[in-house]
């Protein structure tokens, strides 16, 4: 398969998201403009202008009508996917790190960074059907974990919220009361900050976390049982699971500060494929010249009766490549 290189962002990419059909790809970057692309040919459809800081994360509703973006400008914005119009802005007093729509798209979970005196927090907002009725109030606010919470997502049936971040611990919270239900066992859990979290495509029966401790771990979303560990040679920045095959892909690389300038191999910028069950490395995709920050699988892996390796996207600081 020929990779498609998408150029358009002027600063490193931070997050990628396909819509449910897999025809649109949303990209976030440290430049302030989330961008939407045609997934099959890499053509740029448009940008969403209005943020005034790096955009860290986004999610798109099931009907591909709404986009939600989290930005370092201390705001989360709701957009009309089609027109690019801003529907609502949620303001916070610290940078927003991640967003995730619930099943049914009626709720969104947003994490905010620790900033000045403010601690990190997980916020739940109700998303109104009619944007003019949208309230800025949080339904629930959870605080407690030390350091940045890099990602929070909805558990099965929106009953729980799963969070992970700089304190190396994965936590499951009750999404009604905000009570802490489970914490990952420090013995088997990650030893360094968790950089990424990605849930399975079947309404989150299991999820994958990637950490700077050079490993990725697969957990059961209901019991928080550690099921698999995938070891690699470099810090993991981004993880993703194939929706169809038993594949796991890890992206990462050394921090820019510790990369030698002589040879790209030193940084280990390849995206690595692992067998999800056997935990063995099965392949890699080269061609990146900086750390991989974001990955996404195309949910549409079933074209014309042939099952190919589902399309995946890796991202280097300034380009996107579709394989």
């Amino acid at each position: 398969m020929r990779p498609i290189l998408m150029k358009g962002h002027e600063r490193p990419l931070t997050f990628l998201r396909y819509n449910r059909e897999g025809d649109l790809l949303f990209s976030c970057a440290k430049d302030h403009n989330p961008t939407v692309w045609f997934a099959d040919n890499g053509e740029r459809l448009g940008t969403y202008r209005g943020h005034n800081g790096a955009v860290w994360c986004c999610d798109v509703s099931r009907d591909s009508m709404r986009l939600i973006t989290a930005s370092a400008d201390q705001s989360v914005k709701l957009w009309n996917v089609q027109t690019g119009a801003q529907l609502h802005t949620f303001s916070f007093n610290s940078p927003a790190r991640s967003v995730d729509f619930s099943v049914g798209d009626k709720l969104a979970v947003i994490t905010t960074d620790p900033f000045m005196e403010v601690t990190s927090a997980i916020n739940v907002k109700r998303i109104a059907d009619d944007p003019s009725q949208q309230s800025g109030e949080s339904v629930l606010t959870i605080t407690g974990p030390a350091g940045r919470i890099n990602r929070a997502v909805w558990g099965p049936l929106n009953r729980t919220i799963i969070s992970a971040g700089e304190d190396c611990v994965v936590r499951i919270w009750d999404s009604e009361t905000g009570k802490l239900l489970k914490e990952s066992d420090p013995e088997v859990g990650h030893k360094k900050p968790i950089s990424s979290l990605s849930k399975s495509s079947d309404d989150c029966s299991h999820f994958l976390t990637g950490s700077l401790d050079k490993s990725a771990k697969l957990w059961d979303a209901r019991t928080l049982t550690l099921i698999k560990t995938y070891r690699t040679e470099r810090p993991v920045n981004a993880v993703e699971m194939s929706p169809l095959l038993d594949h796991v892909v890890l992206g990462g690389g050394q921090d820019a500060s510790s990369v030698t300038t002589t040879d790209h191999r030193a940084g280990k910028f390849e995206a690595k494929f692992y067998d999800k069950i056997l935990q063995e490395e099965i392949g890699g995709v080269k061609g990146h010249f900086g750390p991989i920050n974001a990955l996404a699988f195309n949910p549409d892996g079933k074209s014309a009766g042939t099952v190919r390796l589902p399309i995946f996207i890796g991202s280097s600081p300034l380009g996107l490549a579709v394989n």
Partner: protein
Amino acid sequence: MGEISLSELEARANAAGIDLSQIDLDSIQLPPGDDFGIISDDEDVYQEEQLDFDYGLGNTIVVDNLPVVPMEKFSKLEGVIRKIYGQIGVIKEDGFWMPVDPDTHKTLRYCFIEYNTPQEAELAKEKTNGYKLDRAHIFAVNMIQDFNRFMKVPDEWAPPEIRPYVPGENLQSWLADEKARDQFVIRASSDTEVFWNDARHLKPDPVYKRVYWTESFVQWSSLGTYLATVHRQGTAVWGGASTFNQLMRYAHPQVKLIDFSPGEKYLVTYSGHEPSNPRDANRVVINIFDVRTGKVMRDFKGSADEFAIGGTGGVAGVSWPVFKWGGGKDDKYFAKIGKNMISVYETESFSLVDKKSLKAESVVDFSWSPTDPILAFYVPELGGGNQPARVSLVQIPSKEELRQKNLFSVSDCKLYWQSNGDYLAVKVDRYTKTKKSTYTGFELFRIKERDIPIEVLELDNKNDKIIAFAWEPKGHRFAVIHGDNPRPDVSFYSMKTAHNTGRVSKLTTLKGKQANALFWSPSGRYIILAGLKGFNGQLEFYNVDELETMATAEHFTATDVEWDPTGRYVATLVTSVHHEMENGFNIWSFNGKLLYRIMKDHFFQFLWRPRPPSLLSPEKEEEIAKNLKKYSKKYETEDQDVSLQLSEQDREKRRKLKDEWEKWVSEWKRLHEVEKLQRQMLRDGEASDEEEEYEAKEVEVEELLDVSEEVLSFEFGQE
């Protein structure tokens, strides 16, 4: 820091905003040489010994046999004594005390002198014991603490108690490994681990692991019997039949460097101590221990200057090893270079051979034949070129000169012995006529032939810079990397020519190689041309018998190459000495097949356990080589069994993993089904689970990309 209680520690951590339960203690690295008062595993072992060193009096000496003087001459005598002892070190304020007899008002023939450090006191004792002030007054100098000991010597001799003989462990049992594997030790972070190289199973097999086993480094003894660890209090050796037990300790405070004699009978330890007077050179203490008894056979003390001549490497101006061992595995002689001389000692009495050193004016470098008591040394040009440079071969103990060669307009010489002591190559850098640049040639000595014939070898292009030179172990060939290009050439030479055995001949030259270091297999025949550091770890596995490349490979940023003692496997390393990235090692087969790869952060050391020389005679070895098929049959079936067993195990493991996974997946599917309605409700009634309704069909598509034909040849020794 001192000791603090756990509750204090918690309080302090809380104050600093640290959650103790979050700290991974293993990840903490202490700066070298500092332990913040945390006791290493072995410290308690040393404790009792330390009690013996009472430093309170350790820096005080007693000088006896002084003249007896009346009070009026007291200050004059004090002046004289202070002058003598002040030169050696700094005498403490109030550190001089000469008692006076209250009846006669005369001195009592002795005085006490207290120095700032025990080392200075030790030095003063050595230097002035026997000092002749005049004919009648020969100083007797002792440490005051020894004095106490001397007083305690019982008057009557008691026969020493004879302890019953206790058979020791078999220290060689590792050689009897059923799978004939080799061991290696690695040091990464604070862990030191010994492994079997289990090449059949493509992984290292752990033998022993210990955290904080050593405080600076570890080292195998020359024949592999012992593993030495280095601590502030001294050195310890470990070994044994089944695991690593401590076998002996060698007290030497602040030991920095150690060296085993080739037959591992003796251990040389070194420490350097800063003088209290900063103008003085560092004080050096070298002890030679008997490895088995732990007894000090001889010690050498002096200023660093005396030990800093010749050689390369080492620390703080001292070239290490200071003592080079000669006479092969018998450990009969050891020698050190001095100013205008080479001091050769023999181990029977640990004194100089013939009670005097070998005179050699301005000698720069010397080395022993690896097998025979023959010394080769190099003296540079003297008198502004009037006296030519000279390489001499001297027989020990007769000190008879076996051969010498005068060399003209020499800038530098390097001596390279072949491992059997058959040949000596002297690399000679000479000035060109203009004296502006140098070129290189070789003088080849055939030691074992009559009259030691010398042959001169110049490279085809004699202006080529020599990057590396290496003899084939036990062989008659050598390899040279030469050239000024970024990609130099590699040439192979043989000391034997098909028809004329007495002449050196070139075998081949490989052009434009990315190599800067040569690593012969210890059994000869195979060599690795390595491009380390600047060449990013290029490796070429070359067969010198067939003059062909077996494999080329790369271990990115490799810093070292280490053959196992049998020449079957080779390790390439990236240690944290150069940088902190990609640390770890690869194990290869001799022909360049990567067997396995281990990553280790903060990776410091990798050492194969040496093996003693084979007990088989050369004839027997030859016979085995001839009938190799017969001998290898047994191993081939074993290999096959192992690989069958492995694949069976592997299949079993995979099956188990798959089954476990299936269990999870079916549970998820069940729950997913149970929750279907609720999910539908959340989605406002949308019958929404269609994403699972498609099936994944596997269809293989083959595409012909390219067709090419190639003639393959299968050779012996390749897999």
